[in-house]
């Protein structure tokens, strides 16, 4: 059979779950279909926790799906296949090897002759713009230069598919942009020895800038919500109206989802935000900061998410948790890519410290069921004390231990600010006493 007859990569009905301590399974990816064809750059776009990085690891053969199939050139992927190379978010360079040795190591594992290893490595270093840095150690390099080493190391093995796991998110804005354009130039000039690219990102503009197709993921579990084709010609211009339109469209696509999900009958024992809801760890300072920003001019209580994100120099991943927490607390509503303050939200923004705390406390105990639950237990007990483990055990029925820990920390933070109840980390006890 001809290998060319198969697409580069074909994923059918893939599911992935992780075991939970109580023996159950936590579903992180569900019903994923994806085909990567020759010459395509596909973006996986979603928020943290949408399982997009997990999907990338399934493709790389670093872990196995719980169901469905991952086929690379018509072959089922069992272990890391030759011909799929990866670029990592944290660069994943070996700090004890020089730039040249870091690039060579992938070829060494391929058992090539010594002089070929050297020749190809120097060529890759040359291509990616690292010449002169061969004998430097990673720690001597800036972040951008380190990621170039990451690219050189992946390209030197001449892979068919290049997997990129948020490769630019650890870099500053300018450096990231330089690396993106350099990569796109090499790619469109056909200088890269690769046939297809999969890019994981949570940056909408980055996805629109680089990809031919963008797959938008939902969270908990991760599913592909939409498949958006980007057929703008390269080089793309961020200020071009059609570029902006696409960004806006994806924004509302990503924000439309939480509303539909809440309407779905996955409700817990309590109405609203059940105790099984995973809370992001958002500080009360961020919450009031965003409220104030939206309440103030020029937004006056209503702002487009992309606009406010750009104005505050935040990425989707920074902004969404804050916006969603405001929504859970009923201080704001999110609709169609806009965030709109409720009347209480506006009241909070204009209130003084003590009034803010009172208002926050009311909303916390009314709308966040876990907080209300803890408060109720404390009120009922004669000692007005309860161990943290009592609640972590309870919510671990709904989520992983890490998520439970994060959720409890978030609720503890908010309750401390609201002076709804106290927590002593030494003893691990919640209580009603407030010094």
């Amino acid at each position: 059979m001809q290998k060319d007859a198969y697409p580069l990569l074909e994923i059918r009905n893939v599911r992935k779950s992780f075991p939970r301590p109580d023996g159950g399974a936590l579903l992180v990816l569900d019903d994923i279909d994806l085909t990567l064809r020759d010459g395509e750059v596909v973006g996986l776009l979603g928020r943290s926790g949408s399982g997009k990085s997990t999907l990338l690891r399934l493709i790389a053969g670093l872990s196995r799906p719980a169901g469905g199939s991952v086929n690379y050139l018509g072959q089922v992927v069992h272990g890391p296949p030759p011909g799929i190379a990866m670029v990592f978010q944290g660069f994943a360079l070996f700090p004890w090897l020089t730039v040249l040795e870091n690039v060579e190591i992938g070829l060494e594992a391929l058992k090539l002759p010594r002089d070929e290893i050297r020749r190809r490595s120097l060529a890759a270093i040359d291509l990616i713009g690292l010449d002169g840095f061969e004998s430097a150690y990673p720690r001597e390099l800036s972040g951008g230069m380190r990621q170039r080493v990451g690219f050189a190391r992946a390209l030197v093995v001449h892979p068919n598919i290049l997997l990129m796991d948020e490769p630019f998110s650890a870099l500053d804005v300018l450096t990231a942009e330089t690396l993106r354009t350099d990569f796109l130039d090499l790619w469109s000039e056909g200088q890269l020895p690769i046939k297809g690219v999969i890019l994981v990102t949570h940056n909408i503009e980055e996805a629109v800038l680089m990809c031919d197709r963008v797959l938008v993921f939902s969270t908990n579990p991760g599913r592909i919500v939409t498949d958006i084709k980007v057929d703008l010609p390269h080089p793309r211009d961020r200020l071009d109206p059609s570029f902006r339109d696409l960004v806006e469209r994806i924004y509302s696509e990503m924000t439309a989802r939480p509303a539909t999900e809440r309407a779905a009958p996955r409700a817990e024992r309590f109405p609203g935000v059940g105790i099984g809801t995973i809370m992001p760890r958002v500080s009360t300072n961020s919450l009031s900061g965003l409220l104030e920003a939206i309440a103030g001019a020029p937004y006056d209580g209503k702002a487009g998410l992309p606009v406010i994100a750009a104005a505050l120099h935040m990425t989707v991943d920074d902004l969404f948790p804050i916006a969603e927490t405001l929504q859970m607390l009923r201080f704001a509503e999110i609709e169609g890519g806009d965030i709109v303050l409720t009347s209480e939200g506006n009241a909070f923004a204009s209130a003084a410290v003590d009034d803010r705390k009172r208002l926050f406390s009311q909303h916390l105990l009314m709308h966040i069921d876990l907080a209300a639950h803890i408060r109720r237990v404390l009120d009922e007990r004669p000692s007005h004390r309860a161990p943290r483990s009592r609640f972590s055990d309870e919510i671990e029925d709904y989520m992983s231990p890490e998520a439970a820990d994060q959720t409890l920390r978030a609720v503890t933070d908010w309750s401390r600010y609201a002076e709804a109840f106290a927590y002593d980390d030494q003893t691990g006890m919640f209580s009603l006493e407030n010094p």
Partner: protein
Amino acid sequence: MTQQIAPISVGGVLRAPLYWDVVAIILVLGVLAFFANASRDLMLPLAELGRHPLSLDPANLPGFAMRTTLRMLAAMALSLLFTFTYATWAAKSRRAEVILIPLLDILQSVPILGFISVTVVYFMSLAPGLVLGAEFAAVFAIFTSQAWNMAFSFYQSLRTVPDELVEASRNFRFGAWMRFWRLDVPFAMPALVWNMMMSMSGGWFFVVASEAISVGDTTVILPGIGSYIATAIAQRDLAAVGYAIGAMLVVILIYDQLLFRPLVAWADRFRFEHEMGAEPPRSWVLTILRRSRLAAWLFGPLGEAWRWSYRFSSPGQRSKTVDSGEIDTGGWRRWIWFATVVLLALLAFYEVALFVMQGVSLAEVSKAAMSGLATMARVFILIAIASAIWVPIGVWIGLRPNLARVAQPVAQFLAAFPANLLFPIAVSGIVVLRLDPNIWLSPLMILGTQWYILFNVIAGASAVPSELRYISSNLHIRGWLWWRRIGLPAVFPFYVTGAITASGGSWNASIVAEAASWGQDKLQAYGLGAYIAEATAAGDFHRIVLGIAVMSAFVIVINRTFWRPLYYYAERKFRLS
């Protein structure tokens, strides 16, 4: 280790002129001659050793020192081998880990000095009549003092290799062998080198103690600094004791300069995170080796050959199935494994109980336990006294960076110096002044181990962030309030680490400290150490094993109920960062 090869990179590293080569060649030849010389006598019959009693002529000392050092090196090589196999097994197999790690924890608590007497007879039976057997026993004793903490550190490093690096190595299809040498070992290197240093420090104590051993009628005297000093004690030759101490000082100094400085400086490149502004450690020996063409010529092919060996390990079947615990590893196999372990444990327990009960009565057990209480009281009192002295001094030094730079290596050096070499001086004093051995022998237990408290506290005080110091002077926090709120909390986690080491070391040292002699005069304090020493001298193996078992039990219980909770408490509450 492959990474030993100095820069073979293409970056056009400046090759130094010829004289570096000359220095390097001398170093290399010196090492060769050293090995040849010191191992010459291994195959001699044991009787040869006994025939000429050890001469106290100081001219013999360099030769003796060499033999002692070689024993240390051999034990270190063994410990490394053990570390790379045992710890790797524990880290890679969840099933093995369940038993291997607690086992390591227990082994760490067994008094090594008690070991020697038990093992020396066994090893001598392996090579009957040859010096080799006795050498094995000595090397094994030193090994048992070095291996456990190295294995622990390596295991912990293997467990904490960053996920992304693991994924990168799998993505680029490293074989298991290649991954071990390219990822695991380099990542573990800085912690391992530090633990090797600590092990060495402890090792000197035991090499000295293990060179002159008599178990019942069997007397083994291996030429070395330890046996030299034992002879000096028997002959009440205070001058000879002085020579031995001098020789030891020189040996440790050379060891530090030629082996550990270079190792530490070299291991620095494997550090995963670098604090900003920290001066990287340097070593003149390493600089010479790195600049020398000869060293590159010598080590280059070695490194090349090593790399070539990666070719024989394929990415293999193992990497296919590895996953984050999604697949339950066959239930019945796990049960068989656990059943085997439990069965072995029961068998071992039966064996030990039988062995002890054959020779000792229940009264004997309670006698050992009572003397254990006496030793425990000594250890705690000594730790308290040493803490009261060294914590304030350590904090005072640590807050003065210039002073700390000088004092820190001195304290580490003192910790490495085998305190048992100093015992004769103290013991002769006690004999002459007719002091009560129950009190005055005690300080010897902590003589060598108190320095762990000092240098840990210095390290802790140096690590206090300058902002914290500024704010305390800004708020005019002084005197007792300063100590209570800033000084003591800041060094507490470091202090606990030091005190744990000091406490463990003191238990061990009690075996040589509670029973000491000076010529014909024998001094004995009431305690478990003296109990074991006495049983050893009498060759009563039942009581030796009983003594060791009781001491291990004491150490384990104290560690579990006192030191470990204290350590976690300190880590949680006081760790700055």
